[in-house]
């Protein structure tokens, strides 16, 4: 155990943790929104993210984007990739909803069944990139790790004075991007009319429809929004890590789901808090021990939090009536 390493670089590790956590938070939004409305863990959401990363790769390839382009080109390519990733991820999320969830909803199936079709969909999507597309198109599809050009070159943009902590452009982009998206989404759900509809369906679908809320539209909206956030996460992820892989979503998905629960699943702000906290806890843990213990530490922190706050840090946004 090495607490010195942690204490000495606390500022830096915190920044590392926040960067890591920002991506968890964005992906966690998808889990939390779907859960909030449908009381369902969308197991295929990790793959919604994965599709996003491939879309970024695809966009760069089509545009011929590489490292070291001019600033204008970089911005254009990044924005296009963002748009494409958001569209592709949202589309995937919607497709999953249509194929795997809607028919079950129509049949009034219990939640466990959704879990299994979710797992099934996840497997199908993973295999689509790992096997099906490879069989038809060959590389880069397949089971190997693929490089994504670092269109944005990592540079230190400024140093936080006082603690002398260098901040790179990619980090800044990730953190700011995540927070901006969170605020936008939160405002939308809490302030807009459609957002109110989302919350109404979350609490009582039948009554919501009696208030004039179109339930199907709301559910679609939720998947689209969650998917789009996963698309944003995908772009930010590729900017920072430069790779993708057919099963890249698996671990991030589990982490993001953990983050959602940590913050209080169903609660949008909880996703942000949970994501950042999880990221920070993980980085701290890898300093104190090493990365082989991060998951254990993270889960133990989760259990401790849940023991004192059984509905997560910020609690469920949906109140519970008794007797």
């Amino acid at each position: 155990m090495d607490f010195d390493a942690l204490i000495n670089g606390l500022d830096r590790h915190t920044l590392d943790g926040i960067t890591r956590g920002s991506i968890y938070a964005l992906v966690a939004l998808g889990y939390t929104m779907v859960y909030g409305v449908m009381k369902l863990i969308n197991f295929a959401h990790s793959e919604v993210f994965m599709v996003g990363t491939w879309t970024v790769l695809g966009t760069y390839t089509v545009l011929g984007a590489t490292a070291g382009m001019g600033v204008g080109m970089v911005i254009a390519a990044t924005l296009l990739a963002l748009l494409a990733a958001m569209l592709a991820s949202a589309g995937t999320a919607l497709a999953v909803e249509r194929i795997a969830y809607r028919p079950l909803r129509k049949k009034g199936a219990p939640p466990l069944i959704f879990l299994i079709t979710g797992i099934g969909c996840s497997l199908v999507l993973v295999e689509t990139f790992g096997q099906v597309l490879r069989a038809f198109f060959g590389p880069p599809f397949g089971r190997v790790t693929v490089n994504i050009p670092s269109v944005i070159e990592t540079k230190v943009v400024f140093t936080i004075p006082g603690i002398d902590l260098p901040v790179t452009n990619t980090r800044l982009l990730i953190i700011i991007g995540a927070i901006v998206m969170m605020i936008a989404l939160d405002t939308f759900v809490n302030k807009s009319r459609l957002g109110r509809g989302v919350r109404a369906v979350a609490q009582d679908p039948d009554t919501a429809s009696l208030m004039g809320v179109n339930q199907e539209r709301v559910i679609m909206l939720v998947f689209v929004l969650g998917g789009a956030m996963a698309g944003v996460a995908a772009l930010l992820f590729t900017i920072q890590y430069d790779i993708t892989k057919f099963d890249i979503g698996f671990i991030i998905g589990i982490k993001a789901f953990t983050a959602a629960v940590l913050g209080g699943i169903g609660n949008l702000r909880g996703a942000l808090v949970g994501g950042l906290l999880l990221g920070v806890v993980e980085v701290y843990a890898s300093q104190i021990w090493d990365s082989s213990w991060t998951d254990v530490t993270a889960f133990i922190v989760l259990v401790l939090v849940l023991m004192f706050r059984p509905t997560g840090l910020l609690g469920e946004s949906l109140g519970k009536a008794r007797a």
Partner: protein
Amino acid sequence: MSQILDSYRGLQLGNRWDRAPKWFRTVALLLVVAFAFYLPFLNILPFAYIRTDLNPTGSDWASVLFLIVVYMIAAVGLNVVIGFAGLLDLGYVGFYALGAYSVALFGSPSSPVVQALQSRFDLSEEWAVPFVMCIPIAIAMSLTAGVILGAPTLRLRGDYLAIVTLGFGEIIRITARNLDNVTGGAAGITQVPVPPGPEIDGRSFFNTIDAERWYWLALVILILIVWLASRLEHSRVGRAWLAIREDEDAAAVMGVAGFKFKLWAFAIGASVGGLAGLLFGSKQQYVEPNAFMLNLSFLFVAMVVIGGSGNIVGVLVGAFLLTYLPERFRELQEWRPFAFGLALVLVMVLRPQGLVPSRRRAAEIEDRRHEAEEAAADA
């Protein structure tokens, strides 16, 4: 439309079974059991087509049968947790791992734990805890783990429990991987002991070649477990679980000690899982942390749900199909995971009540479906 007919057909079969005279049911059950014991030798066409070794690259039929039965045991145990008590456990593999690791840690002469004991108590190098003693150890370890995990977390509701259990499964695996000097680390432990038995042809009774003996052993245990589990289902315990599942607060006010019963479900599920793991580790004679990845937990849940959560027969069918089909259709090779995922989605979308649903669930879903259909006024 055909679906509706299908599900009714399923129901009727169950009803007819219930209405059949008792002697008929007993005889039929005995026949099924006898057939199960005979399965490894099944060689009469066309039935033999179910064997997995027909294909030149197929795997040994009896070994596959053994694995199927081990997974069936695990699934029946998990069904107590998910199907009966309605608790979503996504870390069941943790208990399975504990069972396997217990027999390895205490029974294998090459395990660090045994070696520590040897040097501590001046025992010979061959000494290890005998297999028979490993059984209570394995059950006790997984049961204790179940209680330790359950006690602080069972108060959590539904999906919070899911993620905590998922974490538990990972913790077990990662700890086993990281604690090199206790568990052998990532390389695992070899020389896991096998059950005692007479020597035949210079080989111990439970050896690596005659897999059907392992299968029979597992089958006996499965039958025992199924028998006990069905006792639970149709008793005050089963009713209490059902009541908790439906409305925990109301159940408490009716005198059902929710926490106690949930903990029991967890403990029972855990020990059955441990038992399955023990069988697996012993047959394999080798355990390593990567055998207990998260995916296996999902697979166990899928077995329970696809067959018909809550119904023991359904769960057995689910475990059978999900283990058997990938082995039987080896020729699909690297397309198997894709086909598997597709099958999961298709089966569940077409038969959300499970392949062999419990009658209660089937009726429930059937009713809801009618309602939902009519509710969807915009066809």
